[in-house]
């Protein structure tokens, strides 16, 4: 099957209008030796019926079992309105809204996203998304460097390890120095942070709740850098926590960035995700990415439009604030739909997440496991498991993905598991997890 709409008769006539006798002639500018080598081996073509069957067979290679995996992407319930409305092809087959007169749907949704993200983060402005949490953090660091001209960033080791890796890649390319601050007791070690603060530090980056699930002491972090003209960047990769916890803005964050996949987007093997970037008002003209502003049409009717585009690559080229062009528009739409569906009941959902996480944690403690850190948490926490590897494998053989093995990211945390619990993990599931845990020997 193909998606071509012209017929053989059309081709003949169209060649005539084009003044050539064959399609090959249209490619005459490409050297003949290149054209003659174009053939390659590819599977297919398949009929749609066989293709559908093939895709089902490929997906069945993934083994989906109940899990307590989080670590930057979270399995939340997606209300059917999200799938239904985001599947309207007026939304998903549209391009970037460069022609505002026929893009008010997309533009309004972005404007609503900007509004809600400002409220959740306590920031003044938010953009129309970045690729993912990791690149939003890298871009936040670049934005801070543009802001104060200093070329060093201090990142807490409790920030997602993959985000720190991406930051290292970007920083190497852009000539920015990264320094890591240690942690103690599951949160950023304030003394270590203080020790890293030299004169040329542009920003301090912390994540809260951090990679261990612990809520960081943002007040202490802010106090450490106050009066030093250093930007505080707060990363959030479980944005549902913002419905329960005080916003980073209220602790004095200058930039808040991270991952908003939790809002209406599936875990999907880690992509597409939904990076977000929000900041205080003075960063407005330094922001990367798209911004939608309110305006009016010729009749004075309310209308929305991409704005402050002189920051962007298609106008400013090598002097742009970033190279970003396509972002995660459809994921943003899904997030808006999700946030509007839950509305202020997002807080109840956040409470439910915490309640389920607390239930699992308390039961693990009762069973004699120990928590690695004794800090307030949202829906993730670290448990130290004796013979962790064997326990993990035994649970997997019984149909449970227990949690994330932290040793891979933090060698000193060998034997510790990061558990994430959401509303999708029912009380029955937690019970059944325990029954199996008690019955198996490993």
């Amino acid at each position: 099957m193909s998606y071509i709409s012209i017929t053989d008769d059309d081709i003949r006539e169209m060649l005539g209008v084009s003044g050539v006798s064959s399609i090959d002639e249209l490619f005459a500018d490409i050297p003949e030796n290149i054209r003659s080598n174009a053939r390659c081996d590819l599977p297919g073509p398949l009929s749609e019926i066989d293709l559908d069957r093939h895709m089902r067979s490929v997906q069945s290679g993934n083994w989906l079992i109940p899990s307590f995996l989080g670590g930057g992407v979270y399995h939340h319930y997606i209300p059917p309105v999200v799938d239904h409305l985001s599947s309207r092809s007026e939304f998903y087959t549209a391009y970037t809204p460069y022609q505002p007169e026929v893009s008010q749907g997309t533009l309004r949704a972005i404007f609503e996203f900007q509004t809600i993200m400002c409220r959740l983060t306590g920031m003044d402005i938010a953009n129309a998304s970045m690729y993912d949490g990791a690149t939003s953090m890298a871009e936040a660091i670049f934005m801070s460097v543009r802001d104060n001209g200093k070329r060093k960033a201090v990142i807490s080791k409790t920030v997602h390890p993959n985000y720190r890796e991406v930051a290292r890649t970007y920083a190497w390319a852009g000539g920015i120095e990264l320094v890591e601050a240690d942690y103690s007791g599951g949160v950023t070690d304030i003394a270590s942070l203080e020790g890293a603060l030299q004169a040329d530090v542009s920003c301090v980056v912390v994540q809260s709740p951090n990679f261990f699930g612990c809520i960081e002491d943002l007040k202490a972090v802010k106090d450490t850098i106050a009066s030093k003209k250093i930007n505080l960047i707060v990363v959030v990769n479980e944005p549902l926590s913002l419905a329960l916890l005080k916003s980073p803005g209220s602790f004095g964050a200058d930039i808040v960035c991270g991952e908003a996949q939790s809002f209406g987007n599936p875990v999907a093997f880690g992509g597409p995700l939904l990076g977000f970037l929000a900041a205080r008002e003075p960063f407005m003209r330094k922001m990367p990415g798209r911004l939608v502003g309110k305006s009016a049409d010729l009749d004075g009717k309310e209308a929305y439009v991409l704005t402050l585009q002189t920051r962007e690559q298609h106008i400013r080229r090598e002097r742009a604030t970033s190279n970003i062009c396509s972002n995660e528009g459809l994921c943003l739409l899904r997030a808006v739909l999700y946030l509007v569906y839950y509305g202020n009941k997002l807080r109840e959902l956040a409470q439910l997440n915490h309640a389920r996480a607390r239930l699992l944690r308390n039961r693990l403690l009762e069973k004699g496991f120990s928590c690695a850190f004794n800090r307030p948490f949202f829906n993730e926490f670290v448990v130290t498991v004796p013979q962790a590897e064997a326990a993990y494998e035994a649970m997997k053989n019984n149909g449970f993905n227990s949690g994330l093995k932290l040793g891979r990211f933090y060698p000193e945390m060998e034997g510790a598991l990061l558990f994430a619990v959401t509303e999708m993990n029912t009380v029955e599931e937690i019970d059944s997890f325990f029954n199996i845990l008690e019955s198996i020997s490993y």
Partner: protein
Amino acid sequence: MSLIFDKSAPGRNRIVLPPAEPDCCSDIPDELMNTGLDIVDVSEPDMVRYYTGLSRMNFGVDTGMYPLGSCTMKYNPKINEKSAALEGFTGAHPLAEPDCSQGALRLCFELARDLSALTGMSAFSLAPAAGSHGELTGVMIIKKYFEKKGEKRDTILIPDSAHGTNPASVAMCGFSVKEVKSTPGGDVDIDHLASLLDGSVAGMMLTSPNTLGLFDRNILAISEMLHKNGSLFYGDGANLNAVIGTAKMRDMGFDVMHINLHKTFSTPHGGGGPGAGPVGVADFLVPFLPAPVVECNHGMYTLDYDRPDSVGRMHSFYGNFLVLVKAYTYIRMLGFEGLREVSRTAVLNANYLMNSLKQTYNLPIQRTCMHEFVLNDKDIPNGVTTNDIAKRLLDYGFHAPTVYFPLLIPGAMMIEPTETESRESLDEFVRVMKRIRDEAEGDPELVKQAPVTTPVKRVDAVAAARKPVLKWEKK
């Protein structure tokens, strides 16, 4: 029409959640708790009607022809969407162990292999989340390559016809940009290129075919000049739709390239993403690809993190996986012959359209085009501009072309019909373009006031930028 916030009233949202114990959050100190959550309070029926209304204010490929040059707004097959919605894909957690993720890894492995076969590159990384992210990755690979060789080269050459993302990506990697001129015929000016080549040039980025919709007739000479100078050749695959199955990028001399899966491989643009921008490299650059890389050993798929020369990680996880699923589905559906038919038809459609319009609008470069061509507003009377013509097209149910780009053609209208438009829709586009030209002669105000049939009339972008309002506030 108001925003969703205007429909909010306390108590409208009646959704019910599973219960949690009343004191379930007692372990979180009060000073950490949010006490003023204020998102919105609406009912599901109100919400559905509002967002259905928003969708009707949008134009998409399913609404009408979208001749947006260099954006390849082709039809997005529905089977792609069905594949990407399969629970085995949407429900796979990226941090599950590889033995739980064999299906996803297999798909990535096979897609990378197919892209290599189609382009002649040795290997692909699927991590970049968009075209410009792919460019950034590719330029980093160039940087790493010279770092490893111990050569200090700080300049990247970019033709004056290039997308803005090219120089912006280069700048993010600390390179400086030098612009290469084009000839009046739309090729790279070889003499100018020769004058710029010295020991500081790390590489050159070229979109192939270029953004004028032309295949550079000197491509092999350019490649040879660069390689003789020790520089690398970067291929921007934004316009791959013109040559897919007809010519391999590696055979044109490119050492590193990216592909926009949301263009050539039919994944929808989503109102601005998610896209995917896989990066392909020649064999000598494979060690520099981003980590991790999917490998296959004895039928088991694994993620290889042990890549000491890699530029590093580029994405939170492995890239925009569901977009990859859609592109994979498309490749399986068409096979090699189907993909070859794509480029052949895309080029035929564009040449047909160009030849049907060149008597009515100025065609600055008179050559056989590839998948797109550029007209401009020279000789349009009564002060009617490209922007006016673009807006008037909206009234007739067409999306506008890409306008005022490439920059070297004043008043450019870059038109790309793609292979999925029928003869009838091409003819209708020609008829409307001719009619707009007549209107510019006879009733120019009509064109200057356009559009008038759209959900809003011409939007004042200047006012929006002068006093930015970037969020909704309670009155």
